[in-house]
């Protein structure tokens, strides 16, 4: 049992790696239908999955209550952003906000700073809207909007749930597991900074 408990975070991490590795597989939506296309998009596309995972880790660092709040707020925000794109596809700024989400959320996780719940809700709302807006660009005339949006909502919720659970589980364990979370945040921030240098939004 002790072994199983010790192995759980690693299994979750491995589970997170597998879909990330297949992130190039955008054509999945065509084969599996719009629901699964929506489900996979926030989870398996690195430019969304990394900052969303950082947001989930940030909530998990604050404790279970913040994790529950994020689970309620973020999927709603990402769906609002997605629907916003359908209504007004020309709004500017979502790419810059997505890029900022890498750096800001990564730095907050790396610093392990206490974030008050209202600030967490604000971050989740702003970046949920911007990432959701980008998801809207995937919708074509043939996409079933009901299937795609429900897939996106469930995918985003699942990623938040797993990320926050990992951070909560590792946060209780030992100093070096907490540092592991902070290193993960630092990697997300570093990837965002490099991305800004290579391909400015």
């Amino acid at each position, binding site marked *: 049992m002790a072994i199983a408990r010790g192995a759980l975070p690693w299994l979750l991490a491995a589970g997170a790696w597998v879909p990330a590795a297949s*992130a190039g597989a955008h054509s999945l939506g065509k084969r599996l239908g719009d629901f699964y296309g929506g489900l996979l998009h926030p989870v398996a596309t*690195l430019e969304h999955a990394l900052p969303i995972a950082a947001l989930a880790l940030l909530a998990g660092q604050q404790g279970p209550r913040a994790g529950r709040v994020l689970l309620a707020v973020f999927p709603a925000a990402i769906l609002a952003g997605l629907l916003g794109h359908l209504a007004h596809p020309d709004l500017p700024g979502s790419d810059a906000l997505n890029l900022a989400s890498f750096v800001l959320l990564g730095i907050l996780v790396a610093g392990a700073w206490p974030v008050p719940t209202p600030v967490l809700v604000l971050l989740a709302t702003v970046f949920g809207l911007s990432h959701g807006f980008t998801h809207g660009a995937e919708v074509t005339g043939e996409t079933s909007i009901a299937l795609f949006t429900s897939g996106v909502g469930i995918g985003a919720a699942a990623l938040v749930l797993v990320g926050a659970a990992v951070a909560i589980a590792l946060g209780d364990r030992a100093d070096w597991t907490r540092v592991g979370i902070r290193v993960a945040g630092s990697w997300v*921030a570093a*990837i965002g*900074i490099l991305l*800004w240098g*290579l391909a400015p939004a």
Partner: protein
Amino acid sequence: MPRRLLLRTGAGTAAALLLARAAAAHTSEGMAGGLASGFLHPIQGLDHVIAMVAVGLWGGQLGRPALWLLPVAFPMVMALGGAAGARGLPLPGVEIGIAMSGIVLGVMVAGALRPALPVALALVGIFAVFHGHAHGTELPGAANPLAYGVGFVASTGLLHLAGIAVGLLVHVRPAGPWVVRGCGAAIAAGGVLFLLRQVVGA
């Protein structure tokens, strides 16, 4: 606790090396190509590798909190240097700085030197900018930038981890501390070679 941590980091490093070999086998376009080239870039130049491992070794020697701060702070500082390099911001003497980083960090490890924490962090931070800058300017333009960043940051982090894993040998007495210091001496010697190559141009 250190022994368990040692085992786990060892296993993780082995897995990373296997992944790197797998990545080398498929250098292709797009996401996979970016990931592979980003991952391979930091481990292809020995001057980078020895300096990154030295950072980890020194962290292992210094213990907490430096052991925790280095792997958290380094990727972000290096990424700043990398972004500056990619944007074409000039940084004179990059190659000299990289060779110097091997020498200075190697000497710190070989001598088991313990400067004040801010001094150690500043030293590592300056070298992080040099290493990041070199990677940023040498960057392949065609690869997927996001995937390149992911591979680049992961592989640098795993080099630190490998260094930390060896650096934690300081807790395995009596020979462990001397093994770590010997690694530092070898890194310093390697840095001298790289510096000579830069200066002489051979």
